[in-house]
């Protein structure tokens, strides 16, 4: 299979073009391919059952990747791939991967459409500003959720030592990243899962500097920690990303790679975005040799991932990849409803069901627009995981019906100014005992019984 060193070499020597021309090349090629393969978005469908369309989207995705390549925005060069390289690489896909130690060692697998294998659950307080006083309890509460298999990003330290907002590339990023490593260790030990696998992400600030700032104090062995590398949508990367990848490879970390194709952006409508997403899914594997390949079905207008177009796109591209490859994949779930709201439970359930029957593993859920520091709630992860495990019994048609009913409950309140504001971790949990409040627990139970009424077999 093509090596990362070879990809990095092509990033130095590939043909040059303007970034805006590359963006438009992606758009135009995806539109041509959608026409050629007659791939149309049907807004009345949330979970597709169309195998032919899935296979066509797969072929179109490969064609798009071969025609367009991957763009390095740092030096304006295109990394191109040959058809035989893609075919050959797909034969070397890792379809099963073990990670973690002792009782927390897990096996992550490639999943098929309507597969009875359980989906691996990645979850954590990622993307949300986390204050130092709550950092350990919040992460510990996630770690103590037995259905969370892999902890994903421990939250974001934004203020430290009297600095209210850590600026990118400032010294405080590195200081905070070092503190993050310390606190993550504590949370894992206190949570009783010291060797739980993790995806180690942005700790503080936003530059890549901080990610490397804590390397020598990260818990355990590199082989138990995924490092995250994300394309820029659509099909773009930069020198920093390539450098980080080289560093992670040099130190033996497995990679969790992904991207967030944006429906309505250069990826176009849901049909063309599905094609682009397939190309990206293959490209993250080709470029990074990633073990886990992730897609966040983002939407330009909603800025969250549970809207009808994102659901459809996720189901179609997911089935395309699951039917035609052995890639281990995840879908991320960002919701418009915020933590501690019924809407967040139901949105997360809709995307979990859609993804599981479409052959994917799961990451999330998290609020697309957190409003406060510590705006997270591990009970959402619990129900999300339970729903995911119940969904392995569903056929796609049944999944579509359940998802349709779920979407009906929240489709009119997807805009951020209408979606529920929710509650912080401190308002939803006793931060000392790490028990959810009565109110939080009864919301969880109420959501669960709604889902049971819709036909899910939840215990």
């Amino acid at each position, binding site marked *: 299979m093509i090596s990362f060193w070879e990809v990095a070499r092509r990033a130095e020597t590939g043909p040059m073009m303007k970034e805006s021309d590359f963006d*438009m090349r992606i*758009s*135009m090629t995806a*539109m041509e391919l959608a026409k050629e393969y007659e791939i149309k978005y049907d807004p009345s469908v949330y979970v597709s059952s169309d195998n032919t369309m899935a296979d066509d989207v797969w072929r179109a995705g490969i064609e798009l990747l071969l025609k367009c390549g991957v763009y390095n925005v740092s030096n304006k060069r295109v990394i191109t791939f040959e058809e035989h390289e893609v075919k050959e690489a797909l034969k070397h896909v890792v379809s099963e991967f073990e990670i973690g130690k002792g009782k927390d060692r897990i096996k992550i697998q490639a999943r098929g459409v309507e597969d009875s294998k359980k989906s691996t659950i990645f979850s954590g307080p990622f993307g949300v*500003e986390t204050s130092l006083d709550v950092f350990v309890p919040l992460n510990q509460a996630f770690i103590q959720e037995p259905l969370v298999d892999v902890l994903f990003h421990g939250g*974001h330290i*934004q203020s430290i030592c009297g600095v*209210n*907002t*850590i*600026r*990118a*590339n400032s010294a405080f990023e590195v200081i905070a990243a070092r503190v993050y490593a310390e606190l993550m260790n504590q949370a894992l030990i206190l949570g009783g899962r010291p060797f739980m696998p993790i995806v180690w992400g942005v700790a503080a*600030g*936003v*530059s890549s500097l901080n990610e490397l700032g804590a390397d020598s104090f990260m818990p355990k062995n590199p082989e138990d920690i995924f490092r995250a590398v994300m394309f*820029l*949508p659509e099909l773009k990367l*930069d020198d920093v990303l390539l450098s980080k990848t080289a560093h992670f490879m040099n130190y033996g970390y497995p990679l969790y790679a992904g991207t967030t194709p*944006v*429906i*309505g*952006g*250069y990826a*176009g*409508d849901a049909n063309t975005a599905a094609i682009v997403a397939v190309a990206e899914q293959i490209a993250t594997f080709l470029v990074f040799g990633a073990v886990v390949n992730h897609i966040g079905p983002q939407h*330009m*207008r909603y*800025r969250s991932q549970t809207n009808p177009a994102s659901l459809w796109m996720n189901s179609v591209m997911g089935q395309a990849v699951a039917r035609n490859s052995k890639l281990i994949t995840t879908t991320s779930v960002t919701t418009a409803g915020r933590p501690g709201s019924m809407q967040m439970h139901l949105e997360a359930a809709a995307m979990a069901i859609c993804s599981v029957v479409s052959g994917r593993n799961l990451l999330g859920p998290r609020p697309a*627009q957190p409003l406060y520091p510590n705006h997270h709630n591990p009970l959402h992860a619990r129900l999300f995981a339970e729903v995911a495990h119940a969904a392995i019994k569903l056929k796609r048609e049944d999944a579509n019906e359940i998802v349709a009913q779920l979407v009906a409950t929240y489709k009119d309140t997807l805009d951020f100014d209408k979606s529920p504001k929710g509650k912080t971790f401190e308002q939803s949990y006793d931060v000392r005992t790490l028990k959810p409040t009565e109110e939080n627990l009864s919301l969880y139970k109420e959501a669960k019984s709604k889902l049971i009424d819709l036909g899910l077999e939840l215990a």
Partner: protein
Amino acid sequence: MHMSKEEILKELREGVLNYDEERVKKAAMRALEEGIDPFLAIKEGLTPAINEIGKKFERMEIFLPQLTIAAKAMEAGVAILEPALDKSQGEKVKLGKVVIGTVQGDIHSIGKNIVATMLRAAGFEVIDLGVDVAVDKFLEAAERAKADIIAASALMSFTKVMQRDLVEYLKSVGARDKYKLMVGGGPVNEEWAREIGADGYAEDAIKAVKVAKELLGLK
């Protein structure tokens, strides 16, 4: 063959609506040949078409690629008609100059690109500085272009503080009053804009055009 004014205006409109840059260029040249007032050609041919495109975009009937192509077609038409405008008309057509960029530390570009595209389509001249733009680069570009508006995008709660830095920098070097300052991006809202002392805020690209016009006293 002779073409009537109505036919040419229709061609301009249809060219934009059909994303056909060549058709717009041809119609614009034809307008000049037939002695049609270039101001009218822009105002009644191109502008209504791009407004319609903007509405379609807002309704999610079309997406960023179509918007970009239509805006490019419109610009190509304006580029042909503009030299023929007399001075007072020229001032009315070019609404103003905007320097736009995403703040330092932040590489999110999609929202900023859409705002830039919509501003261009509306008739602003836009200088796009890209992403990760330091405060002094905003000012340098604004000085060089003699801009009217500086527009700063920030997509993360941890980078929106750079919008405040931008205000502080402009004040420190005595340039704050020379430009109108507009801010936007996911974590930004009216309240934040007021707090840091920006002149305008808009939650999306369509409203950004409206706000930019208001800032320059255009209706």
